[in-house]
């Protein structure tokens, strides 16, 4: 965990990748704390009854994990805006990979635009998005 200033980053920088095994228990823990404790997020059978392949992670959990990746990259980055599109259900009990890159630096307000996404082992991007982060400046 580090602190990066606006001057420290460049367009094209990759955010440190996060690779994790998303367990069913972590999804249930999120569902519980987020008030989303319903079958599609908590058990395979209940999810299948709703026509899903098995239990899935809430879209907003993926959004939260991606926000966490930004915070791990730079604990001083203040997220001003984050937007995510849920392209495909995120299935737990497998590896997920959180990725991001700085696409634009904006001098006027010391912000950076980032692309962010969550992919599976096959490189399929289940969740894609962008974020605007404000960074501290040395000046």
């Amino acid at each position, binding site marked *: *965990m580090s602190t990066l200033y606006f001057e420290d980053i460049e367009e094209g920088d990759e955010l440190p990748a996060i690779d994790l095994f998303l367990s069913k228990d972590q999804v249930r823990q999120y569902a519980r704390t987020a008030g989303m404790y319903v079958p599609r997020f908590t058990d395979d059978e209940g999810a299948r009854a709703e026509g899903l392949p098995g239990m899935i992670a809430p879209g*907003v959990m993926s959004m939260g994990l991606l926000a966490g990746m930004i*915070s791990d990259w730079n604990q001083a980055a203040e997220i001003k*805006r984050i937007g995510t*599109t849920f392209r495909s259900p995120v299935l737990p009990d497998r590896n997920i990979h959180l990725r991001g890159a700085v696409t634009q630096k904006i001098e006027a307000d010391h912000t950076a635009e980032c692309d962010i996404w969550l992919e599976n082992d096959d490189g399929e991007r289940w969740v894609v998005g962008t974020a605007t982060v404000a960074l501290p400046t040395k000046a």
Partner: protein
Amino acid sequence: MAVEFDRSIIGQVFDETSFPPVTKEEILEFAAALGEKNPLYTDEAKAAKGPYGSLIAPPTLVTKLRAKKFTPEHLPKFGKVGFDGGRDLEIHAPIRPGDVLTMASTIHDIYEKTGRTGSMYFIVIRNEVTNQKGEKVAVIDHRIMQR
């Protein structure tokens, strides 16, 4: 085929919900469920010495707020099945323990997209979250796909 509906529904507040005060435990549990490591969200003592002077909530905590009414009563059905298409979140002010949040909901937009598999409708529900000081905390746009 376009669905006819009364566009005056767009922008009208159809729900206002107030929530119990945000607790420290709620922030810590939410941060733990996401595996957050930033002391601003996970360590009360360190956060107290940081730029906000206290623990604050991870930015996506506002996505757990549930309006009493998710959609207006007279919203037509645009399709048979609904999907959670995504969220856009603007963050304006940090959330601290003890904050009392209120959320106002409007239909922000309804639009149609035609793809290979036919027409899809996007309903954008906008939730504006304010705190007890009247400060704007966040704006959440929730895109629901129907087809």
